């Protein structure tokens, strides 16, 4: 992938992977309502590595959850790969997540009771693959993230960086179109964080994965092909990342 993709660069329709239109998100807690996102529009072309920055509480995670089908917008539409996901039933939405989204969390969110291989295999349990095939794919995913030597290790036996790489392996094992990372380096030291970013960048460039990454770290955002800033639930346009490649 060559240079940066500009936000205002119109993409051909068929290359548009994520299309967020007029999205409002309001949380109700008792009588109190919190307007987190207001009239938000966002278009993400296939193959983009988008960094999402913004102050804490600005709604970054909320936006990521909406795009990943973990939550539903109060208003507006979200289309991913041509599919109106906000209209899907809970059950269909779960199936959609299993097939189309890989999630990477700040605190890894691995199952402490499962080995690295079993953790990575988890999303495959929902497929019709044979045990052998599941195992093979999990091992391949772990190989991609450079953890072939850690198959049988449990999360507590691994460093933060290794755990996050396991998390990424779990996110890519189903070969999803879209990778959503919420502060993936937020809990890591610089060196481990850089390794994670190298990995995400490679997945974006070599495998063409579309990535949305929430981050507080400008250096991390610099790896992306485009950076957007969210402030009080609105996108602040026009800042561009500088791919380091």
């Amino acid at each position, binding site marked *: 992938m060559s240079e940066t993709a500009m936000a205002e660069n119109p993409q051909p329709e068929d290359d548009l992977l994520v299309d967020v239109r007029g999205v409002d998100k309001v949380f109700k807690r008792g009588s109190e309502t919190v307007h987190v996102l207001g009239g938000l529009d966002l278009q993400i072309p296939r193959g983009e590595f988008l960094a999402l920055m913004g102050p804490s509480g600005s709604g970054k*995670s*909320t936006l990521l*959850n909406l795009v*990943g089908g*973990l*939550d539903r917008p109060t208003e507006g539409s979200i289309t991913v790969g041509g599919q109106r996901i906000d209209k899907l039933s*809970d*059950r269909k939405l*779960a*199936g959609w*997540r*299993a*097939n189309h989204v890989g*999630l990477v*969390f700040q605190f890894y*969110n691995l*199952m*402490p*009771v*499962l080995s690295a291989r*079993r953790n990575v295999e*988890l*999303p495959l*349990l*929902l497929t019709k693959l044979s*045990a052998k095939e*599941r195992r093979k794919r999990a091992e391949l995913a772990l190989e991609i993230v450079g953890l072939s030597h850690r198959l049988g290790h449990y999360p507590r036996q691994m460093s933060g960086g290794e755990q996050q790489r396991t998390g990424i392996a*779990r996110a890519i094992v189903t070969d999803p179109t879209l990778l959503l990372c919420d502060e993936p380096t937020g809990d890591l030291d610089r060196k481990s964080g850089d390794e994670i970013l190298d990995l995400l960048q490679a997945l974006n460039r070599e495998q063409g994965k579309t990535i949305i990454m929430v981050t507080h770290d400008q250096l991390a955002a610099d790896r992306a092909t485009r950076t957007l800033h969210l402030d009080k639930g609105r996108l602040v346009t026009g800042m561009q990342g500088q791919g380091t490649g």
Partner: protein
Amino acid sequence: MKFLSLIFGNLRRKKLRTALTVLSIIVAFVLFGYLGAIRAAFLAGIDVAGADRLITRNKVSLINLMPMAHLAEIERVEGVDMAAHNTWFGGIYQEPSNFFAQIVVEPEALLELFPEYVVSEEDQRRWLATRTGVLIGRGLAERFEWSVGDKVPIMNPLWSQQGGDPNWVFDVAAIYDGAEQGVDTSQMFIRFDFFDEARSGGQGLVGWYTVRIDDPDRAAEVAVAIDQVFANSPDETKTEPEGAFIQGFANQMGNIGFIITSIVGAVFFTILLVAGNTMAYSVRERINELAVLKAVGFTDGGVLGLVLGESLVITVIGGGIGLALAWLMVSAGDPTGGALPVFFIPLRDLLLGVLLIFVLAFIAGIFPARMAQRLQVADALRR
């Protein structure tokens, strides 16, 4: 099956807690199985009681005797196929704790009326040829290691021999086996002809009648008809189906069935709280993990199933081991060393135990499972 590693992983998370929960379930099921065998022993005979057999006894009480002459009159009642008389002997072998039932009968009639007592041709012939001979059950034979040809001395405070000697000696002439599990093989049958001639008094008096009827569906009718024959006579009768008679006999010792059911019920209620508590904690501790499962695509129903599956694994392991242990303990023998007429876990109780395993799993798991099912992913991931 592929979700088992996930389920077992979760159970291993708090090993001690899981172990204690499984242990309490084991204890509950051991009690369930063992007490089930004891209840079955007390109610022995009710299940295998012949539907076509009635018992006619003295209306005053079970221990009041009746004239033997009733026999012919009973057999004349419409619907009666045949009848035979029985008398409680009630002797003691060596010491009172060696209790077992001794019943005085007409041998041919007994063999005819009770096809569930299986006696070889050879033994039948021997018994019919030996006036002092007795027919004993396999269980009784094993209990005192008696075999055919042995002499059995019995002291009887109720019935003494002519001349006042309370000591009787019988010859083991035949041994019967039960045609099915549950048939009481702890009894001894004494020949009436010998007894009636040898006893010092009460000649011509017997304890109760066993009556076989043509049509089990007409049991109530026939029972009334029999009792009417002796109404207003000095020896009025009370006739009831054999099962009800045995039940009434068992109830003289208190309602054993009710007591045991109450104990088992209380134990299971406690276990339900223990298992429910374990499941509730197990879910509450990993809200975040359950949310991650949903995030990667598990459906709400899938997560519900996973939690119920976990509950089921705990109860299947605990209940399975518990029932198996109860089975082993019961097979090792009757706790009284042979005084119980039968001692085994009835098939019905085993099936009930298996059912209980599932019921327990469901009740203990359903509330936490519903909670896990209802978790909102985005919301739960923030915790």
